[in-house]
């Protein structure tokens, strides 16, 4: 498989910044909080050119952090991210414009005191993709591309609805002519009837511009709809990766199966209330994760081996991999999805 975007063994730790005094105190055995959270833990992913990779998981699983590492917003603690062989960051500084991000909340991501046309033009002018003189035309083109009326470039963000703002945010990202687009919950804050419009726009643009995409969402049905492959995260680790239809159809990891099983599904021809399964317990604190496989305290298939050692990521088939000792047993079970 030829990788275009490659994420190689990337980890990110968040910990308290210790002063020299605190560090000495900790060394001498004083009670100083030195624990850190491993938000993303040794993640390796390869995304092909033009592919959309879905990233799912519950809140706190590290999917947004991973998105920011790929986008070059956060430097990784270890590992590298490369696009077409070129690194995204060098010594903690972003060195490419080939990756851009669309964020969840279009109310927070646009400067309220800047005209939206200026917001979209700012990056392309700074990086020489257009000139200040020509920027109006350049922005108008992108406005049309995302379904906005080009005469709106002189308006301010508060004059737009949520859906329109998200279109502006998409225009801003695409005006930088990126090869890779990171979408962090781009439809989560939109109304249901607007969601469909933005998803359609996304599908049209990624195909039309041959964009490579990482699509982060907690909404499994959205991810299923837009992605080619999907990665399931749990407490900073990728537990399962594979083509959408396979992962959703026959999950190989017990967590994937349980996650899909607990989503309320809209069944149109049910005569009674739909039954859905629940996962026992809660996600453990990332400050003190359990030993071995992080999922073992909630897992119905957990064995002593799961408690002792973290399972390695193994290939199930060509494009599929899973980090579980009992994936064969899981694959043998009847899938929760109909």
């Amino acid at each position, binding site marked *: 498989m030829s990788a275009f975007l490659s994420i190689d063994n990337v980890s990110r730790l968040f910990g308290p910044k210790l002063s020299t005094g605190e560090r000495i105190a900790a060394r001498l055995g004083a009670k100083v909080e030195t624990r850190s959270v491993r938000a993303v833990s040794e993640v390796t992913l390869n995304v092909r050119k033009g592919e959309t990779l879905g990233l799912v998981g519950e809140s706190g699983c590290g999917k947004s952090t991973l998105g920011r590492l790929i986008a070059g917003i956060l430097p990784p603690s270890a590992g590298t991210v490369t696009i077409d062989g070129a690194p995204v960051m060098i010594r903690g500084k972003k060195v490419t414009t080939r990756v851009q991000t669309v964020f969840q909340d279009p109310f927070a991501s646009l400067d309220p005191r800047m005209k939206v046309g200026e917001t979209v033009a700012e990056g392309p002018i700074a990086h020489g993709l257009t000139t200040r003189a020509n920027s109006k035309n350049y922005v108008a083109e992108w406005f049309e591309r995302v379904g906005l009326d080009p005469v709106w470039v002189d308006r301010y963000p508060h004059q737009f609805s949520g859906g329109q703002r998200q279109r502006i945010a998409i225009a801003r990202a695409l005006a930088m002519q990126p090869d890779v687009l990171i979408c962090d919950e781009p439809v989560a804050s939109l109304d249901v009837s607007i969601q469909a419009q933005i998803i*359609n726009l996304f599908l049209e643009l990624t195909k039309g511009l041959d964009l490579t995409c990482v699509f982060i969402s907690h909404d499994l049905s*959205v991810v299923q*709809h837009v992605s080619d492959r999907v990665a399931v995260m749990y407490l900073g680790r990728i537990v399962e990766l594979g083509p959408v239809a396979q992962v959703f159809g026959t999950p190989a990891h017990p967590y994937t199966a349980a996650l899909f099983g607990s989503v309320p599904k*809209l069944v149109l021809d049910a005569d009674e*209330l739909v039954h859905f399964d629940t996962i026992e317990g*809660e996600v453990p604190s990332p400050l003190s994760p359990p030993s071995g496989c992080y999922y073992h305290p909630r897992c119905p298939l957990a064995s002593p081996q799961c408690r002792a050692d973290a399972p390695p990521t193994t290939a199930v088939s060509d494009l599929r991999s899973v980090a579980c000792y009992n994936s064969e047993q899981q694959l043998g079970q009847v899938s929760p999805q109909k």
Partner: protein
Amino acid sequence: MSDPVLSVQNLTTHFFTRAGVVKAVDGVSFDLARGEIMGLVGESGSGKTVTGFSLLGLVDLPGRIVEGSVKLNGTELTTLSSAELRARRGREISMIFQDPIATLNPLLTIGQQMRLAIGAHERLGKRAALARSAELLAQVGIPSAKERLEAYPHEFSGGMRQRVAIAIALLHRPAVLVADEPTTALDVSIQAQILLQMRTLAAETGTAMIWISHDLAVVSSLATKLAVMYAGKIVEQGPTAALLKAPRHPYTAGLIASLPAMATPGTPLTQIRGTTPSLLSLPPGCPFAPRCDRGSHACTQKPPLTLDGPRGWRCFHPVGHPAGALT
């Protein structure tokens, strides 16, 4: 059907703002039987939360209930004084909110807060109050409930906090519980646990529930009947299964069709065009008409409520119904 515990007739709540009158709730009617769960679905700004607030008399100025009646076990609530309302709120009708962080007092232990909630309506000794609190916490699925009474809200996870809020709302075994998006901020695995628990609780305690949500899938897994709101009006209501199987209102049909789960992956989704209208400047007739593919000249008038057995809708051209034929 026996007498409803809650009967809402033509409830109308307006906000009198400087920009004009906002008709947030505009003639909402429904009945709720003992132990019944009704899902109230709508997009942001459709008036579902204000409906919930109106039921409990929690609407603040510049908002006011201008018309209609809310009868709880036969008592009219809209004409009660605030003291009389206060005596019923939390005892006969209570509410839970989306954000459990904002509903719990960070400075008091869970046990103290629950005792205050009990003390608001009845005199009960400390030991008995704590015993009842622990019992309720256990009922909503909090492990080692007795010990947890000593804990502060920040020591709980989001899901556990919402369970505490639910337990407090249920302390007096209210006849009606209004739940405003209580699982929206929670993870799916926690949401599933709470939804299942609520189903059981409604059946066990006989508490009727109004479950407000923007998520059709969530309410349909819980509620036996649904009401769909658009621009302050219930545009369609009926038993969950029948409504989902054959939606009559084009808005309901459009909402269902636009869900990603309804389409083949990778293909364009069916979308509803346009955006939700501003409640300040609604079109004169059907509020959905400008976005509707089935609109006709008739839609410049306000569509009346059409009743068909347990179902009802406000549309001149209902989907899949002989009356809806487009001429």
